[in-house]
């Protein structure tokens, strides 16, 4: 499967990702450094001390030289030091936060794919029945209602209401305590993010399934006497998944935006919370680092999506 053509394709794509990362990091670097104020304002440093600090962190140099220095570090995996928590290395910080965000985002992705594809297939199989209408309505509500509203309703129902009727023994603890959440803490943030994206997947899966099951080879499979479940899952779904896979790239962006918002609600110590804090505190290196990681994640997941095509549909080659 991994032919020479595929390999060349992957290398080309990786080069484009690197190019995108360069552009994104440069633009973000220049922009965040020109934001009004600096990281030391909240620390009440003035005059000579401020000048010394700026000098120590190289912030008094021309912006292009600063970027060049950043880049030299970045290719060695060193994203510099935090300016807010002075001296803290950014790379280990964002990597730890990345793992937290991956826990949340990964669970959201599982929910998205699981719910989306299951409900999409169910709706298509029961087209124009009340099952179909219910599922499609929920899909529309899912991808329209903002994630923080879903999170709020979840807290209201599972923390407040459930807590009050059971005297607090089964209530959802809404605030994240450790670095990594337990399953009990994780499910609501993941669901709040995942419902939005699963709504889109449901719609695409349903439409795509409806198109596929009208084709001749499905009739052939049925005529051979295969059971309906085999026809649906092995014959129809596999081909119906191609358009679904194609929007998975968009889904990843949606999940990252969800992570950004939801982490700030539940106090989850991940990249999304760090991003908002770093902007507030003018922690330049952290902002650029988070941005670069997000761009890398999106680039890689788009590449993965394109490679998944070839697995699902052997006719597609690169």
């Amino acid at each position: 499967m991994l032919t020479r053509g595929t390999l060349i394709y992957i290398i080309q794509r990786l080069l484009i990702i690197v190019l995108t990362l360069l552009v994104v990091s440069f633009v973000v670097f220049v922009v965040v450094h020109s934001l009004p104020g600096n990281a030391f304002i909240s620390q009440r440093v003035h005059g000579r001390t401020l000048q010394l600090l700026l000098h120590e962190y190289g912030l008094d140099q021309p912006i292009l030289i600063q970027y060049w220095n950043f880049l030299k570090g970045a290719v060695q995996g060193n994203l510099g030091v935090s300016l807010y928590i002075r001296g803290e290395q950014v790379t280990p910080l964002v990597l730890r936060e990345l793992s937290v965000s991956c826990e949340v985002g990964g669970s959201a992705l599982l929910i998205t794919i699981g719910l989306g594809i299951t409900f999409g297939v169910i709706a298509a199989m029961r087209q124009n029945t009340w099952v179909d209408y219910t599922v499609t309505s929920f899909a529309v509500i899912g991808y329209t209602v903002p994630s923080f509203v879903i999170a709020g309703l979840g807290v209201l129902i599972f923390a407040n209401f459930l807590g009050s009727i059971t005297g607090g023994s089964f209530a959802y603890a809404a605030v994240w305590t450790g670095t990594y959440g337990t399953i009990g803490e994780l499910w609501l943030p993941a669901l709040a993010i995942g419902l939005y994206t699963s709504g889109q997947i449901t719609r695409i899966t349903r439409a795509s399934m409806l198109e596929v099951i009208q084709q001749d080879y499905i009739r052939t499979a049925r005529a051979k006497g295969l059971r309906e479940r085999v026809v649906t899952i092995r014959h129809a779904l596999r081909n119906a998944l191609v358009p679904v896979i194609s929007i998975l790239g968009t889904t990843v962006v949606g999940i990252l935006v969800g992570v950004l918002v939801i982490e700030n609600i539940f106090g989850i110590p991940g990249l999304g919370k760090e991003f908002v804090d770093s902007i507030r505190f003018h922690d330049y290196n952290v902002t650029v680092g988070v941005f670069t990681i997000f761009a890398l994640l999106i680039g890689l997941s788009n590449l993965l999506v394109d490679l998944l095509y070839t697995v699902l549909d052997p006719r597609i080659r690169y």
Partner: protein
Amino acid sequence: MAAGVEAIDYAGGTLARAQVGLWRDGLRRLRRNRLALAAAIYLILLAAMCILSLFWTPYNPNLVGTCPDYTLPGPGHPLGCDDLGRDTLSRLMVGSQVSLTIGLVTAVIVMVLGVGIGLMIGYLRGVVDAVFALIINTFYGVPPLMVAIVLYVLLGPGLINIIIAIAATSWMDMARLVRGQTLSIREREFIEAARSSGARTGKILFGHVFPNALGPIIVQTTFVVPAAILTGAFFSFLGFGVPAPTADWGGMASEGFSPLLAGYDPYMLLFPAVFLSVTLLAFNFFGDGLRDAFDPRQRR
């Protein structure tokens, strides 16, 4: 199209329906779509409330201490009061101004920007197209909300800057759509006819290509509105919204989270959340209806 041809009556029955133009035909289909109609009625009511709030609200929306802090819904204050004792209903009414302004103005800017860029790169092709493809792909490579937030912080606080930041990160879909339409329309015979009869580029683009792509453009524009309102709500929710004390739904929902988590006043979150969600749903349903009505090929 001859819009005024009478229906042909034959033996008491109608053989052919009266021919109607694109717009009237679309409106007829839109009227038959009950969900879209309900959405339209809600949106009209919302607009009326928004205009009303410019002149009158039950209480001063920004007056601290109108009622005791965290007053629950009841007589006098049907939706309760917030953490500073401000009337929630009044603030919700005024908050619609921010949401609707963000949604509508962003949509107009995105339409102008996207149509302009799309027409240009679809018509010029070549290097310009390649350059913009690179720009658009770079934009797609980062979460739009992050870019918008950084841009907004750079521009400084204010409603106009929120709109600029959101518009700057949501024109790409429109540009790609218009580019595709332009690429296909410019190859059609009537464009060749126009060119051979001496029409200039501007005339061809805005007189011929643009009107023929108008259906999908309008449909796309109606989807920009809820997307922009949602992004605006995320903005204020994360603390990058319009400066205090101006009320807006995202910010109100954000303020409502701590009393909700603490478990003593869920309404501060609930009401702005419901208003925001229903408004987004209404715009989406209306957009779906418009698409089915004016762009039947896109029907899903």
